C-alpha cells in the first residue's frame, strides 16, 4: 500500500500556522508570569494579530494541500475582516482586565485567537469537511468566551444558550451537508457543482431531495448569521457575554457565516439558482428570510432599553441587508456584500467599543444612562453618533456606500432577468426599513446630545479602548469618502467565488 501525499505548500498557510502558535504563546506567557501579566497579555495578542496580517500580505494567493486549502481574493478579503474584528475586540477588552476578568486572561485572549484561526481556515477551504471543521473551530472557543464571567448569571446563560444553539445549528448544517454529499458523491465544492449539474440534466429523476438539503443548509447557516426565524439567541447572548465578545460575535462570527454561505451556496450550489432547477432555488427562500430580518430586526430594535440588545437586533437587520447582495447573485452583488461587511467591521466594532468603555466606567448598558454624554465625553459621543449614522446608511459615511451598492446590485439583476423581478420588492423592503432604523439610531444620538442634563460619567480618552474607537472612526470616515481601493479589491471576489452571471 503506497502513500501519495498531496503537494503541500506551507507558504500560503503561514498566517494560520503562526496565529495558532501565537495563541499558545499568549497562553504560556500568562502562565509563565504566574498570571500577573495583566494588560501585557492583551498587547501580546494584538501584536500577534498584526504580524499575522503582515504574513497574510506576504503569503499571497495560491493553493496548499491540494484542494484543501486555497487562498484567493475572497479568502484574503475576509481574513482581513476576521483579523480586524479580533484586533478591535481584544483592544476593547482592557477595561475588563481591571476588574471582571481576574483569572485565565491568557485563555481568554488565546481562545479569541484560536477562533480567528478557525475563521481563517474556513475562508480558505473549498471542501465540505474542512469547511465544517473551520466553522466548529470558530464557534467552540466562543462558547467559552461568552460564559467567561463565571459568577454572572447572565453570562453563564449566554454561554449555555450559545452552546445549545450552536450544537443544534451544526447538526442541521451537517445533515444538509451529508445529503449534499450523498447527492453529488463528492465533498469538493467545485466538483460538486459539476456533478450536480450533470445529474440534474435529468431533473425528474433526482426529485425534491436537494430542496430539503438546501433548507437545512439555510437553517444551519441562518443560525450562525442570526437570520430570522433562527435569530432569537442573538439578543440574549449579546446581552450576557462580555461586550468585546458580543462585538466579535456580531462581526467576526457573522463574516465567517457569510463566507461559509457564499462558498456552499454559490461555489457549490449555484446550479440551483436557475430556471431549470426552480423547485430547489434557494434565492426566494433566502429573500424571504432577508426581508424578515430587515423588518423584524429593525422593529424589535426600537423597543429595546438595553444598548447591547439594541445592537443585537440592529445586527440582525444588517445581516438582512447583506443577504440582498447575496441573492442578487451577480458580480456587483458579491462585491457589495464584501464591501458591506468591511464597513460593518468598523462601524459595529466601533459602536461596541464605545459601549464597552461606557460599561467599564459606569457598569450600565441601559440607553437611558447615555443621557447628556456629549457634554462630558464629546469624543465618545461624537464617535458613537458617526458609527450609528454609518449603520443607518447616511452619506458620506462608509455605511451609505455599502447599502447603495447592495441595493444597486439587486436592481441591476432585477432589470437584467425577467424572473428576478421580486428583487425590486426586496429593495423596497430594504429602503423602507432603513427609515425605521434611522429612528432608533437617532434616538441614542438624541439621548446623548439634545438634553439639558449633564452626564455624571466622564469616559477616559487616553485608553486602548478609545484607540479602537479612533480606528473605527477613521475606517468609517476614510472608506466613506474614499472607498475606491476597497471596491477595487472587492471586485475580484465574485470571480474567486465562482459567480457565473447568467
Amino acid at each position, binding site marked *: 500500500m503506497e502513500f501519495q501525499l498531496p503537494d503541500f505548500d506551507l507558504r500560503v498557510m503561514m498566517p494560520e500556522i503562526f496565529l495558532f502558535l501565537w495563541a499558545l504563546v499568549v497562553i504560556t506567557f500568562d502562565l509563565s508570569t504566574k498570571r500577573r501579566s495583566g494588560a501585557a497579555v492583551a498587547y501580546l495578542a494584538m501584536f500577534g494579530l498584526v504580524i499575522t496580517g503582515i504574513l497574510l500580505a506576504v503569503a499571497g494567493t495560491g493553493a496548499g494541500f491540494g484542494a484543501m486549502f486555497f487562498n484567493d481574493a475572497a479568502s484574503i478579503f475576509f481574513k482581513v475582516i476576521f483579523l480586524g474584528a479580533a484586533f478591535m475586540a481584544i483592544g476593547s477588552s482592557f477595561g475588563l482586565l481591571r476588574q471582571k476578568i481576574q483569572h485565565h486572561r491568557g485563555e481568554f485572549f488565546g481562545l479569541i485567537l484560536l*477562533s480567528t484561526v478557525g475563521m481563517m481556515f474556513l475562508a480558505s477551504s473549498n471542501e465540505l469537511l474542512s469547511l465544517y471543521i473551520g466553522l466548529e473551530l470558530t464557534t467552540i472557543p466562543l462558547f467559552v468566551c461568552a460564559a467567561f464571567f463565571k459568577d454572572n448569571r447572565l453570562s453563564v446563560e449566554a454561554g449555555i444558550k450559545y452552546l445549545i444553539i450552536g450544537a443544534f445549528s451544526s447538526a442541521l448544517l451537517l445533515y444538509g451537508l451529508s445529503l449534499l454529499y450523498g447527492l453529488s458523491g463528492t465533498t469538493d465544492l467545485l466538483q460538486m457543482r459539476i456533478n450536480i449539474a450533470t445529474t440534474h440534466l435529468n431533473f425528474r429523476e433526482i426529485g425534491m431531495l436537494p430542496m430539503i438539503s438546501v433548507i437545512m443548509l439555510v437553517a444551519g447557516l441562518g443560525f450562525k448569521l442570526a437570520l430570522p426565524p433562527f435569530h432569537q439567541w442573538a439578543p440574549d447572548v449579546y446581552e450576557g457575554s462580555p461586550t468585546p465578545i458580543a462585538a466579535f460575535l456580531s462581526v467576526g462570527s457573522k463574516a465567517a457565516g457569510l463566507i461559509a454561505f457564499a462558498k456552499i451556496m454559490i461555489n457549490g450550489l449555484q446550479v440551483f439558482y436557475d430556471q431549470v432547477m426552480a423547485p430547489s432555488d434557494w434565492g426566494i427562500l433566502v429573500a424571504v428570510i432577508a426581508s424578515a430580518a430587515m423588518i423584524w430586526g429593525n422593529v424589535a430594535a426600537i423597543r429595546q432599553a438595553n444598548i447591547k440588545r439594541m445592537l443585537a437586533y440592529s445586527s440582525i437587520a444588517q445581516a438582512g441587508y447583506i443577504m440582498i447582495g447575496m441573492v442578487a447573485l451577480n458580480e456587483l452583488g458579491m462585491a457589495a456584500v464584501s464591501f458591506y461587511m468591511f464597513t460593518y467591521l468598523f462601524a459595529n466594532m466601533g459602536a461596541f467599543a464605545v459601549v464597552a468603555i461606557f460599561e467599564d466606567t459606569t457598569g450600565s448598558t441601559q440607553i437611558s444612562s447615555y443621557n447628556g454624554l456629549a457634554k462630558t465625553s464629546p469624543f465618545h459621543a461624537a464617535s458613537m453618533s458617526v458609527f450609528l449614522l454609518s449603520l443607518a446608511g447616511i452619506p458620506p459615511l462608509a455605511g451609505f456606500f455599502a447599502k447603495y451598492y447592495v441595493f444597486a446590485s439587486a436592481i441591476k439583476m432585477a432589470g437584467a432577468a425577467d424572473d428576478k423581478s421580486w428583487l425590486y420588492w426586496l429593495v423596497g423592503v430594504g429602503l423602507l426599513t432603513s427609515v425605521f432604523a434611522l429612528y432608533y439610531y437617532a434616538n441614542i444620538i438624541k439621548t446623548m446630545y439634545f438634553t439639558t442634563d449633564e452626564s455624571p460619567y466622564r469616559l477616559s480618552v487616553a485608553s486602548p479602548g478609545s484607540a479602537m474607537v479612533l480606528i473605527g472612526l477613521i475606517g468609517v470616515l476614510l472608506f466613506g469618502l474614499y472607498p475606491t481601493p476597497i471596491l477595487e479589491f472587492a471586485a475580484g471576489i465574485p470571480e474567486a467565488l465562482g459567480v457565473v452571471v447568467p
Partner: protein
Amino acid sequence: MDASVSPVFWILAAVIILSAIAVVSLKNIFHCALFLILCLFSVAGIFILLHAEFLAAAQVLIYVGAVAILIIFAIMLTTNLASRTIQQVNKHALTALFGCALFVLAMVGLFRQSGVWNWTQTALPDENVLTIGKLLMTKYMLPFEVVSVLLLAALIGAIALAREEKS
C-alpha cells in the same frame, strides 16, 4: 446481500426505535441513559450490516465508550439525580411530535424516489478501513490536523470554565 431484506436488519431497527422511544419517555434518567447505550449499540449493528466496519467500531468506541459513559458518570456524580423521577415532556410535546412526524414523512417520501442515490451504488471496497485510514493521512490530512487544534481549544476552554477560582 441487500441489507434491507435481512431479518437481522428488522430486529435491529425495532430495537433502535423502541429504545429511542424509551430514552425520551422513561421517568428515571439513569434508565434513559442505559437505553441510549442499547440504541447506539444497535446502530453500530446496522453499520456492520452495511459493511461499514470502521463506522461500527467508531460508533461503539465514541458513542458507547465515551459519550454514554460520560452521561452515566454525570448522573452518578450529581446528587440524588439517579433516584429522582423527571418530567420528560412539556406543553410543546404535541407540536414537536407533529413537526417530527412531518419531517419523517417528508424524508421517507423523498428517499423512496428512485435514482437519487446513484453516486453511492458502487460497491464498497473490501478493505474500507484501510481506505479511510489512507485518505485521512493523505488527502484529508489538513482537516485531520485542524481537528486536533479544535480539540485543544475545547480542552483549554473546558479547563478555564470548570476550574474553581481561589482569590
